[in-house]
């Protein structure tokens, strides 16, 4: 038996330790989020996707034209979490929701907080609440809240 100090060793990090490029369409979307603006991409037929889609899933048309949408929108569906799990970003009861932003034809998955389950139904009006810091990520929108 060899002494343990003779063993070959390698570090092992269990993590998402690689970088991704956002590409031209999503880069523009994230740059705008950094300025608290939400963009969508518009198809030739006038359909607006937000968050910005790179192509139309039905026609496969490449999408480049950007339009501003939101920051208000209506709830298309939601799931209410009374007891958040460790990995959730919000530690108080909150909802995951599909939100159709004003001016968009598709919905954005995000969170709704600072309200009760009874305040929410399909069609409820919500608006974006921004994070204190900007990382140019989807989490620059901290969550959505009930529209005043």
């Amino acid at each position, binding site marked *: 038996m060899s002494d343990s100090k003779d063993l070959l060793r390698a570090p092992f990090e*269990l993590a*998402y330790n690689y970088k*991704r490029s*956002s590409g031209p369409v*999503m880069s523009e979307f994230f740059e705008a989020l950094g300025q608290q603006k939400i963009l969508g991409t518009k198809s030739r037929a006038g359909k607006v*996707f937000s*968050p910005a*889609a790179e192509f139309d*899933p039905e026609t496969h048309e490449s999408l480049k034209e950007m339009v501003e949408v939101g920051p208000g929108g209506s709830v*298309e*569906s*939601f*799931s*209410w*979490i*009374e007891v958040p*799990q*460790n*990995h*959730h*970003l919000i530690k108080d009861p909150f909802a*995951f*929701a*599909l939100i*159709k932003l004003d001016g968009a034809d*598709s*919905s*954005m*998955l*995000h*969170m709704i907080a600072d309200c009760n*389950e009874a305040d929410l139904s*399909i069609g409820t009006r919500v608006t974006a609440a921004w994070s204190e810091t900007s990382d140019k*990520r*989807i*989490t620059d929108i901290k969550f959505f809240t009930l529209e005043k």
Partner: protein
Amino acid sequence: MKRVAIVGYAQHPILKNAGALNEVELIMPVVHQLFNDLGISQKDIDFTCSGSCDYLQGAAFAFVEGLSAIQTNPPIKESHVEMDAAWAMYESMLKIQMGDAETALIYGFGKSSPGDLDAIISLQMDPYYISPLWPDRVSLAALQARVLLNQNIITQEQMLATVMEARTNSKNNKNALITDLIDESDYLNNPMVSSPLNKLDCPPISDGSSAMIIASEEKAYEFTDHPIWIEGIDHRIESSNLGSRNLATSNTLQASMKQLNLKNIKFDVAELHTQFSHEVPFLKFLLNLQDVPTNLSGGPLVGNVMMCAGLDAVGKTYESLKDNQLTHGLAHATSGPCLQHNMLVHLEAKK
């Protein structure tokens, strides 16, 4: 199309926590059971394909470990899908269609107990718009459940009936993990995990494995007197952009039904890869299965081995046709949030 049949299927008892049993130790018994039942060995297999998820083990290329469960010397033709093993079956079908193989061994395995499945599944989503929000799989399923309830496509009573029936049907399934019966008050008093889904609407965390052998017409009768034919197989995926999908229907499933010409087939039995209670009445409606005995095995609500449960739906349909002398069976496998990616398999026993 070359005709291909399922000639054997084996499933490990589904465990809540396999503990120190590693993936190889979960796969070996089912592969060996299949080989013994058919009186064959690895040398009778032209192509081997597995389905598993490296994220569950937390290591890149973890699936290679699984190969230790089978004999790989002399070298074998082998492949892997980072998907449910139902898609390993699909790849094996293609391999046989291409003339590269006459027989294929398919296996799937998954241990969900060691990690936090909700967190892990979040990491498999769109890394730009969705993963950073850490949506858990139950909350995503709940978004679809609410749409279906709101549009009266399904009812809360159907969800309750599905949960109760799954547990009643578990008596037909010697490998089921959940076998205790519940009544209406158990269901109604169960706390919500992510409203409108409570704990009983969701599948149990499960560990296990399954294996299947398929063969071309030339080989099938060498293995068994009772092959079950894969009459049709089709799979389609919807957009990864969750918010652009219509969650109240499934255009892809409808396209698959048309492609497989299922409209006029009277199915005797169906097994659906329905992980959440609301998905059963929804798919029964979409697939015209209202009068067809469905999920007689209990389905994923009584045992849901990740990366196997889709193959298990095919395997359980195969067993139903074979053991009960039935003719037509429909199996369904799925992947992704809110039934994003679906496979339909039409199985037929020839009299």
